[in-house]
């Protein structure tokens, strides 16, 4: 992707759409400071992200990636508590305010009934909700999710994206996801970033991009799936 000029405003749910290989994951990882940008700069709240200390950045931005989490011995509560990591001291002890944020996150993601469950025992959908809760507990202004619905069944794909939509509405955080769930994204997102190979990213509301035919151009097979 070249010549990008993108902005994530406050309190918006943005979906990054595009074909495989166009660079969605790379973009997200660059925004997340996991990779260096080849050219250009990324700013978080007026400050370049490479000027941020690790912890400082972590307090603003949290992630959900496609990396597998194999810590089967952890339970859901411990997982979500990890979200407070950037705020606790070297012993990792959580203060009352930390506990509150954790409980709030668990409640918003509707996984209270899973608190004591071992990660190895819960389903993929439940695990994904737990990971989102963890990112939520981190309480930054921005959440970046790379393909949050991959490996999930059709129902879960909808409920996860609906969850994210509601989170933005309720908490006024900004959430950027990359996803292949084009129809659901068009329904739920405030803004779409449409990535095509060799072109600049097209930004606009779902309505705008449908009306000017961009969606149809990028996803010609979408219409064919109507029954």
């Amino acid at each position, binding site marked *: 992707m070249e010549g990008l000029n993108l902005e994530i405003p406050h309190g918006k749910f943005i979906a990054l759409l595009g074909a495989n290989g166009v660079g969605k994951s790379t973009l997200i990882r660059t925004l997340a400071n996991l990779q260096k940008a080849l050219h250009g700069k990324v700013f978080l709240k007026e400050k370049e992200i490479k000027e941020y200390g690790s912890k400082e950045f972590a307090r603003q931005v949290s*992630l959900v990636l496609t990396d597998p989490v194999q810590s*089967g011995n952890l339970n859901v509560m411990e997982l979500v508590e990890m979200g407070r990591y950037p705020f606790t001291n*070297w012993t*990792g002890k959580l203060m009352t305010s930390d506990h509150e944020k954790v409980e709030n996150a668990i409640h918003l993601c509707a996984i209270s009934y899973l608190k004591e469950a071992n990660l190895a025992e819960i389903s993929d959908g439940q695990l994904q909700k737990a990971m989102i809760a963890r990112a939520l507990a981190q309480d930054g202004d921005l959440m970046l999710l790379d393909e949050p619905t991959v490996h999930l069944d059709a129902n879960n794909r909808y409920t996860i994206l609906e969850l994210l939509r509601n989170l933005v509405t309720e908490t006024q955080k900004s959430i950027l996801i990359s996803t292949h769930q084009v129809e659901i994204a068009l329904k739920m997102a405030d803004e779409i970033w449409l990535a095509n190979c060799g072109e600049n990213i097209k930004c606009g509301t779902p309505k705008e991009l449908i009306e000017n035919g961009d969606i149809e151009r990028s996803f010609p097979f979408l219409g064919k799936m109507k029954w």
Partner: protein
Amino acid sequence: MILSISLGSVTISFVDVLKIFLGIETQNSAHYNILFSYRLPKTITSVFAGAALGFAGLQMQTLFRNPLAGPFVLGISSGASLGVALLVLLGVGVNGALAYWGMAISSIIGSLAVLLMVVVVSIRLKDSMSLLLVGLMFGAFTSAIVSVMQYFSTADDIQNFLFWTFGATGNLNWTELQIFIPIIIIGIILGYWQAKPLNALLMGENYAQSMGLRIKNVRLFLVVSTSILAGIVTAFCGPIAFLGLAVPHISRILFKTSNHFVLIPATLLLGACLLIICDIIAQVPFSDLILPINAVTSLFGAPVVIWLILRRKNISKNFG
């Protein structure tokens, strides 16, 4: 621990052991010597060496997210054996106490050399998996050099070197313990300070970084802590295999947790206990026989680990 002090080739009755500790006179002053000059230091050595190796193994397994990692995975013991080999196989013959210190020092120098190379590489690498492979390569390389040296050495020299590789907890006296113990404590403190980062690393380096960890710093700390612990134990006791690999697994299975704030003390405790037990077995109580500790750890340890795993039936889910 009391068992370890009581058992050995010379029979000292349990009552006598207590008496000597309490400062009460007993008939045999030789017993006193045995207890204080030999058995007690040996037991203390086992406690600290076992704890050190167990903890080092835990750090490596979590850092590399690899259940096969152990304290020597960075090539530390290979570096140590290179140092010792250079002294024993190539150097001029040294005798007695000088030999022991000579071996300890050359072992430390060897470990430090490997540590230095590993640190330099670690700073330049982005991901830990690469560091693991580089460490293994360093190990292979130094082992090969040692092999070549052995090939060209005399039988006597080879035997001396071989005895070093068998590992022994009995070579330290109180003077040496004064160096051994504080260094191990430093290594443990360095590592314990990283308990929270270790927990974060359970989720992988990307997530850990997203939670505020500076991966390169943490990696450096863990590498240095492990090298100090593994290096000093190898210097004074020779390479003791297996414990560093097995003890973390046993801790995880027994305590059913991945939380390092629990796992670290658990591993320290378990490591100490296990090495004492192996040491007792190696002494082959009530007889004159002594087995090499290196063999005993694996001989008795491996079946125990297999039994534990079969009981739990599935380790990959629990790992990490």
